[in-house]
């Protein structure tokens, strides 16, 4: 909380020739196979890259006799892409594997994100509960985007909103993860949310 600090915290090396852009990020969450990587690939200026992120899981206490949570580290694939807005500003889009494993262990990736887009397949609404809960709990601006597979949505947006029990403030939209313009508009909905929050 030091407003006088520069945008980034460069280390003391006077010879750094190139000044990097200010990096910002948004998170694309949702269940397996829901279209996260498709969405990232539709709008990213690079082919989506994959990296292995370590997540710490507290194992379920099935065989836990000691009452101490047994922590295990799992490695999961994370796809991401980027959009260079201008030479001084670059947006990263991180697709995070979701379902029940989406939780506190994702803090490592989500910390500092401007917002989240939770992609929903209406045939498998359950898959996105954890992501919705996560963003609500972390108070990260987000929108729910129903991916219109083959142009069809099985439930109305009101039904989706009711099923997910998200607050009225959370936009619920339909989009097509394969269409760049559609992904762009979905991200804009999230960013408008984030902007409105700074002015609240």
């Amino acid at each position, binding site marked *: 909380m030091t407003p006088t600090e520069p945008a980034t915290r460069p280390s003391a090396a006077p010879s750094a020739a190139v000044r990097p852009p200010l*990096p910002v990020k948004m998170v694309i969450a949702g269940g397996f196979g829901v279209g996260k990587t498709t969405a990232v690939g539709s709008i990213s200026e690079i082919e989506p890259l994959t990296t292995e992120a370590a997540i710490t899981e507290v194992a379920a206490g099935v065989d836990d006799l000691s009452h101490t949570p047994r922590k295990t580290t799992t*490695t999961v694939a994370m796809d991401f892409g980027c959009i260079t807005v201008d030479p001084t500003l670059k947006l990263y889009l991180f697709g995070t594997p979701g379902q029940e494993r989406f939780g506190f262990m994702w803090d490592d990736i989500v910390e500092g994100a401007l917002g989240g887009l939770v992609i929903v397949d209406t045939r498998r609404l359950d898959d996105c509960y954890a992501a919705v809960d996560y963003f609500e709990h972390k108070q990260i601006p987000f929108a729910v985007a129903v991916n219109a597979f083959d142009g069809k949505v099985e439930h109305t947006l009101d039904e989706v909103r009711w099923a997910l029990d998200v607050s009225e403030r959370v936009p619920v939209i339909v989009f097509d993860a394969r269409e760049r313009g559609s992904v762009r508009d979905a991200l804009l909905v999230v960013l408008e949310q984030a*902007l409105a929050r700074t002015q609240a």
Partner: protein
Amino acid sequence: MADGSTPPNPEPGGPVPAVRPFLVTAGRVAPDPSGRTMPVETQVVATAEGLAVLDRLAFEQHDIVAACRIPQSIAEIAARLRLHLNVVRILAEDLRTAGQLTVHVPDTDVTHDASVLRRLIDGLRAIPDSRGVLRDTD
């Protein structure tokens, strides 16, 4: 492996290539002594000093400094060099300490500022619907 050693944990089926992950970090797993984890979008840039000693750097260090001629996020470095994210975090911190890289951790007060959000919104709005080169000026 090139060095003839056996990976310490040769688990089959794991998606991470056997890069003797934490051997190159001398077993360290905590990236930052301050306890704060370097965000995945943190930008890293090679310094003139780093590029000058490039030939003398060991494999992973060499590859990271070489890749960072162009500013990169640590996520991009990890993906392109097929290194574990936390290995990149640790090595980047080492290389920064040695003066071979600069590490630019984004300040969330700045990134979440309304002015940044407006620039992003304007920038995204300018993205056309289709991937094709726009020939019309509508």
